[in-house]
Each structure stands twice: as C-alpha cells, then as structure tokens.
C-alpha cells in the first residue's frame, strides 16, 4: 500500500486479529526512536489531546517492563503495561501490551523505523489474540466513546428496520 508523504496516519486491518498503523515523520529515525522511548518525551505526545499522562515508566531492556497511565479529559483513568521482547535501537521494538481494564488479554506490538532522505516511516503492527480483542482496541479510539457507539447502534437499528 502506498504511504503518503503528508504525514497522515494510515490504519488498516490486514487480518481479523491485526491492526497496522503507518506514519511518516519529518525527522531522522534516531530522533523518532528517542521520542518513542524516552519517558519525558512520551508524556508529551502519547495522549494526543485526549488527556494527561500521569505515569510513564520505561525499563528499556529485553524482559524489562513499561507502564503508561493516562487520565482522560472526561476524568477516568486508563492504564497499559507490557514487556519489551526485542530491542534493536533505532530499528525495531517488539513489546507486549495489556490494557489493564481487560487484563486477561494482551497484544504483541512490532514497531519498525525506516529512514529515507532524513524522513522516517514507522510501521506499528498490533497483533491481538482474537478478533473480539482487536475490535475492542479499534473501538477504544472512538471519539466520544459512548455517543459514537449509540449512534452506530441507531444506524444499525435503522438498517434492520
């Protein structure tokens, strides 16, 4: 699939259990890697505009753990943790990820960094254990959460009627 150079995230669902996120950055890969793995820097981007990162712990070694906690604008807290499985600095990171509200399930994230002419394309492949878990992950990105879900429910009801 072609990746645009406009710096827009592209999300695809290659299989029932995967999410693939691709994005190009106007920076060399050692800086993108630094932004991705340094707690003070992660705190500045990871929540987007959805809330504030209250905990960002990174023990960057194979077998080491990470944990991110965010207080969303609506006031609730969401937390994630995992373990580093593979670390190739500036090239590749493989981690596990648990959404603490669904502790029995974990995803495996494979992140790669590719640089060309000073620009870096990251590809983040998220592999879930089931389609249901994958779908829940995608649902979690929904703006307004409940409202969107209810809108969708209404659309479905209309389409069935």
């Amino acid at each position, binding site marked *: 699939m072609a990746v645009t150079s406009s*710096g827009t995230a592209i999300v695809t669902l290659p299989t029932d259990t995967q999410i693939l996120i691709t994005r190009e950055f106007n920076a060399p890969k050692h800086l*993108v890697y630094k932004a991705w793995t340094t707690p003070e820097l992660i705190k*500045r*981007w990871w929540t987007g505009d959805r809330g504030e990162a209250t905990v960002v712990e990174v023990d960057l070694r194979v077998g080491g753990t990470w944990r991110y906690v965010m207080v969303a604008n609506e006031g609730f807290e969401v937390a994630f943790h995992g373990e580093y499985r593979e670390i190739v600095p500036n090239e590749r990171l493989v981690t596990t990820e648990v959404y603490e509200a669904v502790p029995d399930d974990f995803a495996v994230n494979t992140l790669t960094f590719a640089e060309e002419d000073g620009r870096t394309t990251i590809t983040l492949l998220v592999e879930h254990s089931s389609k249901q878990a994958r779908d829940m992950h995608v*649902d979690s*990105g929904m703006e307004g959460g409940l409202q969107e*879900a209810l809108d969708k429910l209404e659309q479905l009801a209309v389409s069935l009627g």
Partner: protein
Amino acid sequence: MTYLYIGIYVADMARAATTADAFNAVAEPRRRQILDVLAGGEHSVNDLVGRLDLAQPLVSKHLRVLREVGLVDVRDEGRQRIYRLNGRSLKPIHDWVKTFERSWERRFAEMDVVLEELKEKEEGDGGDE
C-alpha cells in the same frame, strides 16, 4: 467500569446484534478475497471461480452473503452474472477505522512538535553524539 469501557461494550453488543451487516460479511477471509478481486474491476462468477480456486457453489454462497449486505452489486450480461464492488457499503467499516486513525493522528501531531524540538536541539549542539 469506565466511560471508555462502556463505549466498547455497547459497540460490541451493537455489532453482535445482527449477522447481516458489512462487518460480519467481511469477517470471513474468502469473502475479503472476493472483494479484493472485485476491487480491481467487475467479474463474472466463472471468472471468480477461476481466480480464487474455489468450488463454484462456495463462491456463489459467498457472493450471496455479500449481495445481501450490499457490498456487491450484480447485473446480467447474456447468460453471465457479472459482479462488482459497491464501495459505499464499506463506509461503516471505513468510518469505524477512520475514528481510530484520527486519534492516532492527534497523537502523532504532538510527536511532530517533539521531533521539531529534538531536531533544533541537535542542530544547536552541532550533533547529539
């Protein structure tokens, strides 16, 4: 239970409530394969059978499911049934993924700001090494 989690739950229930929507239709890998082929242009049933290496009754069964949810349209051409993709019906899936994409894009936009700073700092230092 958090607000976010309620959202997840309701959305999941919403989709579980029916078996006849685009989400369910594309859950089956063979049907996605058919859509991939039709994305390249319209094809007759026989043509699809040849390309997918699947038995004709199976292909017809999948096409019926796709047609019921409006993902493909069919027209007759002589004795042939010609199928084509109806992209509009993929919109609910597209929208669903798009919303997720937007929250990642906001995240990455923040990262752009961080990266600009890192670049400036590195240039100012004459290299970070």
